[in-house]
């Protein structure tokens, strides 16, 4: 079996001492920020991007991935124990999980959250491994026009699924794409929009944008809100589930894994969408649906499995097509490009260590998280005793050192200040930052593919409609856009996202 041999190779890479260590560091940091409200995976990954540059690309990506799926584990802990979602993706876990804790079944809820996540993580690992080479084969037959349309579709869907007004989100996507035009034009070498500033000839700093809009802006918004942290109610209780609880969880975990895996692959999808989708499904189809609202274990098992599955399958479009499905994946693209690796379908062949090593490390990481989370739950809850007034200066200093160390240039620091203020303004105006980041990453690639496609077609734009793959992508994008203009669909989405956080 080719797959087994490749996975074996992957485990060989993932189990080297250095990679294991960084996988563990990623998982621990991920759990920590998952537990702590006020700092999410996007901010943390952008914060730690510069730190990973000294490491080989594989190690860096293994660690950053660990942070992302680790955060899904950690987020459930505080959601269940304190009714406090550490992450957006665990908002729905609070609905049933906290009710279970109030009934004294906190231990069972934590167990199923961890076990369900582990199961979903294992399935998702296999899914990524199996679909990777397959999709890569498909992707290699893509022409520039198909790529352009695929990216176009990704951008539209990421905007459509963002919270709030679709038009504003598309506006932010286009703004991001335009921001990506700053710098040297690849084909002619002409400087565009650089105002004669040499630092801008490589483009606006990706890390500066990410840290400013997600790190600094986040700190400021949290400081404006008064701190509200409830104390823990009751004890964790036994971690053991009753046989009845276990039996009821199995179908929920299976459904959650399926929903999560599918929604993770979708551009614009990701952990938050998946956990919400799974919760909606459990409320409709599970056997324990009449218990919802009083602490039904299905309402914990499903969403927790789903968000973990999604956080891993969202790597599929990135690893096979080079297209980021959400803001975290956009950061991964940034990390890869800074490491000198162009994400795309050739990555599986050109970087087998990275591809298979990452996949194997996901499984290893899930195993670690199981150990990190269940027996050590008390330690993580204690982390909440750290007040935000001690956290924000630390985040700020880490941001500042990180952004400076990129190129040893203070210009990057000042750039970050500008994006911090801009990010604050955007969140006040409900302009979404995530679509902008995705647009920024995809913009330069889209320009290149557009140019190539038009050169090949001798300037005939019909090429986008004549190629079947490209036409299909554009049709889906068009349908998604039209659907959002229908009042019913839009209302459904708004209420869904409002409830999902």
């Amino acid at each position, binding site marked *: 079996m080719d797959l087994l041999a490749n996975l074996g190779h992957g485990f060989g890479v993932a189990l080297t001492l250095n990679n294991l260590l960084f996988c563990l560091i990623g998982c621990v940091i991920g759990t920590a920020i998952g537990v702590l409200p006020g700092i999410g995976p996007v901010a943390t990954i952008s914060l730690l991007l510069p730190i990973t540059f000294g490491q080989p690309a594989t190690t860096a990506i293994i660690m950053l991935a660990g942070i992302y799926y680790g955060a899904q584990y950690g987020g459930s802990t505080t959601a269940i124990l304190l009714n406090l979602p550490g992450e957006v993706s665990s908002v729905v876990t609070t609905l049933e999980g906290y009710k279970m804790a109030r009934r004294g079944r906190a231990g069972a809820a934590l167990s199923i959250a961890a076990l369900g996540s582990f199961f979903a993580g294992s399935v998702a690992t296999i899914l990524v491994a199996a679909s990777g080479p397959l999709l890569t084969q498909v992707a290699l037959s893509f022409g520039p026009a198909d790529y352009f349309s695929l990216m176009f579709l990704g951008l539209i869907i990421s905007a459509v699924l963002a919270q709030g007004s679709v038009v504003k989100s598309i506006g932010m996507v286009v703004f991001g794409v335009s921001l990506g035009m700053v710098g040297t034009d690849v084909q002619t070498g002409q400087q565009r929009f650089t105002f004669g500033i040499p630092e801008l000839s490589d483009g606006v700093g990706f890390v500066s944008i990410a840290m400013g809009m997600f790190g600094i802006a986040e700190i400021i918004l949290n400081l404006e809100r008064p701190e509200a942290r409830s104390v823990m109610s009751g004890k964790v209780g036994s971690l053991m589930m009753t046989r009845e609880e276990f039996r009821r969880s199995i179908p929920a975990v299976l459904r959650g894994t399926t929903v999560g895996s599918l929604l993770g692959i979708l551009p614009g999808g990701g952990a938050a969408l998946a956990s919400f989708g799974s919760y909606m499904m459990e409320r409709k189809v599970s056997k324990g649906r009449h218990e919802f609202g009083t602490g039904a274990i299905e309402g914990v098992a499903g969403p927790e499995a789903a968000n973990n599955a999604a956080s891993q399958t969202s790597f599929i479009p990135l690893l096979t097509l080079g297209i980021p499905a959400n803001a975290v994946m956009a950061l991964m693209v940034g990390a890869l490009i800074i490491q000198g690796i162009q994400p795309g379908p050739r990555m599986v062949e050109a970087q087998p260590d990275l591809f298979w090593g990452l996949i194997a490390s996901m499984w290893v990481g899930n195993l670690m998280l199981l150990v990190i989370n269940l027996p050590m739950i008390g330690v993580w809850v204690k982390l909440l005793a750290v007040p935000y007034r001690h956290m924000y200066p630390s985040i700020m200093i880490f941001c500042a050192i990180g952004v400076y160390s990129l190129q040893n240039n*203070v210009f990057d620091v000042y750039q970050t200040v500008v994006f911090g203020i801009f990010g604050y303004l955007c969140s006040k105006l409900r302009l979404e930052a995530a679509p902008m980041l995705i647009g920024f990453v995809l913009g330069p690639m889209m320009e290149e593919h557009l140019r190539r496609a038009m050169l090949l077609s001798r300037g005939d734009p019909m090429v986008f409609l004549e190629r079947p793959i490209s036409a299909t992508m554009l049709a889906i994008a068009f349908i998604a856009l039209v659907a959002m203009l229908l009042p019913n669909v839009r209302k459904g989405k708004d209420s869904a996202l409002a409830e999902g956080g």
Partner: protein
Amino acid sequence: MKLNTKDLISAAILIGCAVIGLWLNTDHTMGTARRMGPGYMPFLGFAILLALGVIVLIIGLFNGPDPIARWTGPEIGFLLAGAAAGTAAGLVASKVGGWPSAGWNSLGLGMFVGCMVVAVVKSWRPLFLISAAFALFGLLLEPAGLMATIAICVILSAFADETHTPKGVAGLVLFLCVLCYAVFIYELDIRVPVWPQF
């Protein structure tokens, strides 16, 4: 008409960026669809941005009301004063020569002064004190070294939250200095001056 203030301001930002972008883009050759010049894609991008901005504007005229928190007199006053003071400080710094004019120091000084002026108003403090501390980090790092910079920036940013105690801040400074030394200097060995350079 129900005005949606948030949407109208968003539209203004989008349209503003688009117009400035289109104007700057007149410097670049457009080329043809077959052989695109450097100006083709930016033109496309900013044109779409302009159109979207106009759509947001039109929608914003009717889907309100969604007011933003009203700014008080001092808030507006100090914001304008900060912008003026920052610009002035930056311009002066770029002219006087010596350290303030070297490298990007004039930009950093302008940002720092501007943000500090606005941070006088209490409700602006989280936003502008953090920004000021960040700009100060850029200014101080190379001459004063990492340790001193961490201490000064943490102390400055501490004023953004009133629940800080002097003892707590001192502990935090010590903790961050040790942590950053261990992570960035000892472990990652990044090229940053650690101690003040005289």
